[in-house]
């Protein structure tokens, strides 16, 4: 193995880990944040008991993250959610979306 190929492999491994680390959401951190911020209305497992608050459990994570980003940016307007989403970091949003999308769901795509 030449020095060049070792460097190349090293770079490839570092890139793979770096990319994975940057994107992987932390489900446990999401659960902790959910308990703190979301659970009172949406339920700790996301199956909210109140008809006024949408069920989040098993919803697509990318949709949940988009909703939170839109609330935070003010492009989706809701007085309650603006306050909560505004206090979340981008990482919090990814973690919460990963946590709620992984919970057992009654939601489905329905034809």
């Amino acid at each position, binding site marked *: 193995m030449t020095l060049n190929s070792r460097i190349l492999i090293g770079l490839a491994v570092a890139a793979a880990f770096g990319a994975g680390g940057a994107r992987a959401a932390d489900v446990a951190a999401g659960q902790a944040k959910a308990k703190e911020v979301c659970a009172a209305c949406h339920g700790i497992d996301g199956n*909210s008991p*109140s*008809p*006024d*608050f*949408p*069920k989040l459990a*098993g*919803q*697509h994570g*990318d*949709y949940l*993250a*988009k909703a939170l980003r839109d609330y935070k940016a003010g*492009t*989706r*307007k809701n007085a309650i959610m603006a306050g909560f989403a505004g206090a979340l970091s981008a990482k919090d949003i990814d973690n919460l979306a990963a946590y709620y999308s992984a919970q057992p*769901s*009654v*939601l*489905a*795509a*329905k*034809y």
Partner: protein
Amino acid sequence: MIKFRVLVPALAAALAAGTALAQGASAGDPTKGSQKVQMCQGCHGIEGWRTAFPEVYRVPKIAGQHQAYLVKALQAYKSGERTHPSMRAIAASLADNDMADVAAYYGQPGLKAAVK
């Protein structure tokens, strides 16, 4: 007394009718709703379907969601409070009773089948 005998049932009937009407308006009819969801199915009826514009993400699963929330979401699209272009256009075409019926259809418990 005769007047009362007539009046009381008449009032009771009127009240019951009023209540039924109010409930009908808010509860929606899932059977009627099933006739009004053709325009929903092309996206929400396909597992994992993604929007193409203005941002790419999977469209939300709506079957099994709370009816009241579904109505609120449609109203928010119609009023412009929520901004997705396709949903604004679709919600604008729905009257209040249409929204209630569609929400009653999708809010039924136990709907699971999807086109893969």
